[in-house]
């Protein structure tokens, strides 16, 4: 049987037809022959691979957010199909949001820690993005650089607070029958 593909000339719409004409059954006249409409441009399959997505991030300076809340910056040197990553000159940036040190603290603080070469297992990556090198050195809006030890201490304190809060929340939720989708895992 002749196999008409999607590109073949369509038959004239069978509806409406003159009164009394059968719908299906007989081929409408003028169906066969005629030009083919152009095939619309199709996107190639390899555009839809992890590899294609990571390709133009290679050798770029990236910010990588991990599932445990850590924020790394580094140069992406290599990767694989699982989005496992090799990061060079990695730095971890620790943020302390406003209000952590004291309720009156209006601006956040941050500090960087040199980490060196990182191999990150893909499943731990939340997201990563290319850093605009022109904005790279500017402190994030609302944040100021601060002493590393101070930032680390505050961050630790903040994390403990949040952990306790989360724990209370999960406990409360579980009493009314919720099994949280990420129980026990803090997504930051």
């Amino acid at each position: 049987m002749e196999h008409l593909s999607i590109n073949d000339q369509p038959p004239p719409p069978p509806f409406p037809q003159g009164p009394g004409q059968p719908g299906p059954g007989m081929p409408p006249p003028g169906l066969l022959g005629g030009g083919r409409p152009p095939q619309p441009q199709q996107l190639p399959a390899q555009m839809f691979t992890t590899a294609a997505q990571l390709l133009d991030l290679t050798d770029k300076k990236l910010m990588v957010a991990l599932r445990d809340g850590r924020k790394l910056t580094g140069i992406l040197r290599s990767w694989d199909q699982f989005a496992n990553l090799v990061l060079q000159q990695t730095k971890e940036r620790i943020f302390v949001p406003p209000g952590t040190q004291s309720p009156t603290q209006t601006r956040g603080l941050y500090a960087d820690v040199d980490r060196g070469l990182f191999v990150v297992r893909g499943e731990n990556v939340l997201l990563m993005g290319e850093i605009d090198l022109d904005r790279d050195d500017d402190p994030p809006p609302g944040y100021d650089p601060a002493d590393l030890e101070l930032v680390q201490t505050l961050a630790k304190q903040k994390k403990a607070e949040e952990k306790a809060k989360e724990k209370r929340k999960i406990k409360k939720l579980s009493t009314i029958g919720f099994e949280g989708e990420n129980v026990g895992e803090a997504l930051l």
Partner: protein
Amino acid sequence: MSFFNFDQSRHNTAAPGFSQAHDPFASLANRDEEAEEIDFEDTYDGLGDQLDETDDAFNDDTFGGDTGEPGPVGKDFDFFGHTAKVANVIEEENVRFNRQQPAAKAPQPVAQPSAYTPIAGPSYNYFAQAPVRPARTGYEKYHEQPIEDLQVDAALWGVAPKKQPPPPAQPAVPSAPSGGRKMLSLEEVEAQMRAQAKAATPSPAPQHQPHQIPHEQAYLYQHQAQNQPQAHFQAGVVEPLYHQPQGHPMTILQRPHSKPPTPAQPSSQPPAIQQHQQPAVPQQPTQILQNPNRLSGDAAKIGLPVHPTPPSGPQSAHQGHRQQGSLPRQPPMILHPAQLAQLSEEEKAAYLEQEAKRAKRNHKIFQMSRDNGIMTPQDKNFITRIQLQQLVAATGNPNEHGTDESLAEDFYYQVHSQIQAGHRQHPSQPLNQFAQTYLFQTGSRQGGMRRHNRGPENHMQRMEQQVQRAVEAAKNKPKNKQLVIEGSLGKISFSNAKTPKPLLNIKRNDSASDVKKAPHPVNGRDKKDELRALELVYTTLMKMEDHERNMPMAPAEDDQEALAKVFAWSNEGQALNEQLWKALRVQDHDQPGRIHPFMALLSYSKGKKAIPRIFRHTNHEQRITIFTRIVVNLDQLDVVREAQVTTDDIQFNAAMRENIELFSAAIVTTLFTFMNELGLDLVAAILGLVCTRNVDVIAKSRIGASMLTMILSRAELIKHNGGGSEQDWRSWDMTYTQFFNILEPTLPYIFPGSIATDQDTYVWQLLAAIGIGASPDQQQRLVIAVKDRVMDTVSLAKTLPPALAADRLQNVNLFMRSIGLDVELLQ
């Protein structure tokens, strides 16, 4: 082949002047991290000193070097008479080759020629690469054990091989031996010079190639891009990797940057100026990222000092990351210090600031670029292929477009893109079957969103034309005491992009009781059963649509086999039609107290949406049966029964409003189109059927009123056109009178809401349609029935702003004129 007679095997690729990328920021470099830096002198083996430099005298002439060059080299000599004859071919071949062989691979060191056989083809790559010699290419690990070519059978991807034109004939130039990449033959040099002399068609140096796409394919892209400019991924479209043995798939995967090819920098400019200029030249940022021609980390560690080299040479090292900055891409072009002086203070400051920013960024990029390419193109290629294999395994060949199999896999995208391409590019182009199927529906369903759609004529347009014809007919008989039908059919407005209907509405508290209720039929209805029946309708419809596409060729008279095919096809269509008919259950008997099974389908939005498609695949008798079924059961419809108007200004809830809109767009429109094929006898019969139902309930809903308007106005149109036998008209008049008598008591109550509402246009249209066919006595009764509303609207109009007042009066006048009056008489 050694042009300068030095011993290639002993040539130190790390020797100064051959290997280093230029670092203009060397002095700025923060070298903290390089604690273990090794002194150059400690490791330098001195081989460079053994080089015979004397034969280098003509290097610059040969390679177009620019240091100490007094002026541009003349290009009008011909060392080799034959070359001229083939110059064009060489040029073409050269461009083609360079695109196939992106710069990433192009400059291979002379020192290891044999190692590249798996990847390197004959080289015509004689662009200004001479001053750059990679210290390390990234391919070293492949040397000892040349890797197998990872080529996958192109057929597996089902892509372009068939599209691939045969490669251009090899030019009459002796190909350089495989791997002899650096040295150019005299003919090649000459050809290049000729090519460059042609200012009109400069062959861009690889470093400036914005699209590293094989030549033919680049053409293909352009071609496609013309057809489909909205596709932004054009450069990624064709997949040279599977049929270009030496091609770099990764380069084509890179997103294209729609920057025009920039001709090579004229080499005659002083270096300082060039340096200023370069940042303004759009570069292909990704190219460098894959360019093995770089200073690798290892090379840096073994103590290569960073030598400033002429900037026109290794631009690569510090221009790659342009993409990663956000500075304006085209800063003011300053070519000469004098220009800077002319700028105002403010401009100067801005310029300098930008320059500083750019310098800073470039420095960062340079520092990062040292380890670029650790992941080689092969690595990337390899992983991409792994993933493609997985894709193929999971979903079939994703690149096989247009076949039935891929259609099954990729139905949404393929039809969607057909529809999109259909209306954006070629409004007049015939759409394929599927696109038509959906476009007809989307045209009416989403008219609000697709108003720009100039696709094929759809039902709505036909209806408008129909109305216009009626208006014309009425205009030609102004004395006739007949109604001007204009607008009497009611505007069928489309549901606009309203708030999407919530699909998930989980109420935690009563969810338990819902679950218990579900299996039992509610009000004698089994929702699950109805939805299942509806799915069967859709499945059958889709089979019919497929079947229609597979229609065999028209057979020749005596071709028994072909005739048999047509017969079989036709039989199959008949069987599907019967299956559809059965699934619709139109002819099931009405059971008192229970909604008819066909009408139950119409209470679901997908049931409503199916009607236009069903009408495409049913015959005339079946359509009449469906029409009759709908009319007979009009008062069972939720959009009629549950949407009764009252004198209060109540708004139906969003779901009901949406239902009404959808019913109008999908069903009333379809029925209207179909009705235009019907003769007066059938129209009268349909009105007769209406009379057997709850006319008051029908008339007190928007959908019901629209249906009545449709029926009455069709009869008027037939009258205008002189159709219908005398007997038909007698029967019509009788039916009309019966209808009028039933409806009369309800007339004052068919208006939606109080006088303040402006939603009553459709009622005036119905009244006009009634008035136009009424006898003088009936007209009198009609006026009495709605007199209050008319008077109230007229007096209300006096208090409204002129535009609004005009609208309201126009509505009333539609009715007034149908009975030979005018609102002006009342004012």
